[in-house]
């Protein structure tokens, strides 16, 4: 823990318990608008984070506080003596789970307001083994060989996007592209993964969770959650670009990958071994995580977090989806068409 702190003290400025990268210009990525964030932070002086969120933004209660979002992290087999890093920790849900199970954690995020919120949460949870760093994930974090494990949960696809993202407003049509994007998103993502690799100790593990480019539902009725458009996830990049430029006036940069493409990417970044898992209904709230390409029996069962409905069309659609899930995943075992992947990638011991 002291080793991590001394490294951070050498490299970054510490203001009120937050480390800052001085050369980093402010970034923003949040489910809340900047205005809403300000309201949230102002109210945190008066009551607990849970009460304030439930009162002001109840839709975010589950994503911020539900401990079951961390079920996938069991795959990392975190040990008490280990030091970890959560790249893009945002509200701190996974960071806090890890901090309770390991020696110390570093939470990194480009959104200062999110880290301010996490500070409150850490105080409420009586956790004193966490450090928070406000910096841009596209820049190199010179913490070579520091961490036993790293978490990249729903982050890789956003790395190439240089825009500030207020999620609700981000998908409004014809919103101008106010910043230039990376020329080659894949290269940016690869550089990021190389940095993650470099910062791991020999034998270190990466938990990488991301949507699948070829989720079968993208071919049918599901929008790409990163562009809120149909088909951009799996179409050739040039065509996805055309669509995004036509609709939003900005290129498509939130690259997803197939099961094999993602494995290739992690291996190009330097990782020696990759264990692949399919996550259902997605990696954010996994209820089923199934190892891919092993000899284990296929115990797939269709799971969705659904509110009950009397709408006949909705019920019919859900039934069709359940049948398709059964055919594709249970009968045919085609996990390459799963909604999300969780990869456990390992750095070699040498």
């Amino acid at each position, binding site marked *: 823990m002291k080793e991590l702190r001394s490294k951070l003290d050498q490299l970054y400025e510490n203001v009120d318990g937050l480390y800052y990268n001085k050369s980093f210009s402010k970034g923003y990525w949040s489910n809340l608008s900047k205005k809403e964030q300000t309201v949230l932070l102002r109210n945190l002086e008066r009551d607990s984070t849970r009460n304030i969120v439930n009162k002001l933004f109840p839709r975010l209660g589950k994503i911020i506080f539900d*401990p*079951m979002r*961390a*079920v*996938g992290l*069991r*795959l990392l*087999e975190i040990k*008490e003596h280990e030091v970890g890093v959560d790249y893009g920790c945002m509200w701190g849900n996974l960071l806090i*789970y890890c901090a*309770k*199970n390991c020696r110390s954690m570093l939470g990194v995020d480009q959104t200062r307001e999110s880290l301010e919120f996490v500070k409150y949460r850490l105080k409420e949870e009586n956790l004193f083994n966490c450090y928070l760093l406000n910096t841009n994930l596209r820049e190199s974090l010179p913490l070579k060989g520091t961490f036993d494990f790293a978490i990249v949960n729903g982050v890789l696809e956003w790395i190439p996007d240089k825009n500030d993202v207020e999620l609700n407003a981000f998908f409004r049509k014809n919103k101008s592209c106010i910043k230039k994007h990376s020329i080659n998103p894949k290269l940016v993502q690869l550089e990021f993964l190389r940095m993650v690799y470099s910062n791991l100790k020999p*034998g270190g593990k990466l938990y990488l969770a991301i949507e699948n480019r070829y989720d079968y539902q993208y071919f049918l009725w599901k929008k790409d959650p990163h562009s809120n458009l149909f088909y951009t996830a799996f179409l050739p990049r040039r065509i996805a670009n055309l669509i995004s430029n036509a609709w939003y006036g900005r290129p498509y940069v939130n690259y997803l990958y197939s099961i094999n493409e993602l494995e290739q990417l992690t291996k190009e970044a330097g990782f020696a*071994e990759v*264990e692949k*898992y399919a996550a259902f209904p997605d990696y954010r709230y*996994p*209820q*089923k*995580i*199934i*190892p891919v390409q*092993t000899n*284990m029996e296929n*115990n797939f069962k269709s799971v969705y977090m659904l509110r009950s409905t009397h709408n006949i069309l909705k019920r019919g659609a859900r039934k069709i989806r359940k049948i398709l899930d059964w055919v594709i995943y249970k009968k045919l075992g085609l996990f390459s068409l799963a909604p999300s992947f969780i990869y456990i990638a390992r750095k070699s*011991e040498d």
Partner: protein
Amino acid sequence: MKKESRTIYELVSSGTHKNNVALYKCRKNGRCFYKKVAFSSFSNRLIENEKKGYDWFYKIAEKDYQVILSRNNFFEIEIPEFRGKIHPPNIPLKGCKDEVEIIIDFYKKYWLNAQPFSIHGDLAISNIILSDGEDINIIDWEHFHLADPIYFGFDIFNMLFIALRNQFKKVESVSKKTKAFLKSCYNIIIDGVPASNQILEKPFQNSSDYLIRFKHKFGLCVEVTDKYALAKFPQRELEQLDLFIT
């Protein structure tokens, strides 16, 4: 570390009834087993309680198994894999009558004179594994608690009701055949049970009452009526069911 010595995980279930517990099926070096893991401080208690349940069961049934409890920040237990027939949660009663009879015999053999007496709390057919030769293993001891022997029979009638609900939504729809089967189950259970028993006079009603009266013993994270259909079924319909079989 060689690849073969690593554990491969499969998340089987996550946070059922908001209990903040996850169940993983694991494989390591060719051996399969299960891990039940807490994800909150409250669910540590559930894990610890489940371990007590398994220990109680293995002792009275004289089984040579062990459930290993790890008390990390979040508790977890390692449960051996049992080979045998596992039924889905929504199995109707008509699909498992033979199994029900075997289970009732097993329950009578081990629970009737067990010291101390206990309640499993969720003895659905899907939580019972029957292997060849009628060996029975019972899993999911999360709601285990010690109880007065006068409540002998609760687990069986809770089990019967779950299977019945999967088949019939209304008591009026219960067929004559099913009623006859329930009656035969009742006759097997009641034979040799002391008169002081508080369940068997009106088995479904009294089992429902037990759930409501002693809900604090079940370690629930939701309302008892959210977890147990028996607790929210109308009393007059339970009364009708009891009249059929007693």
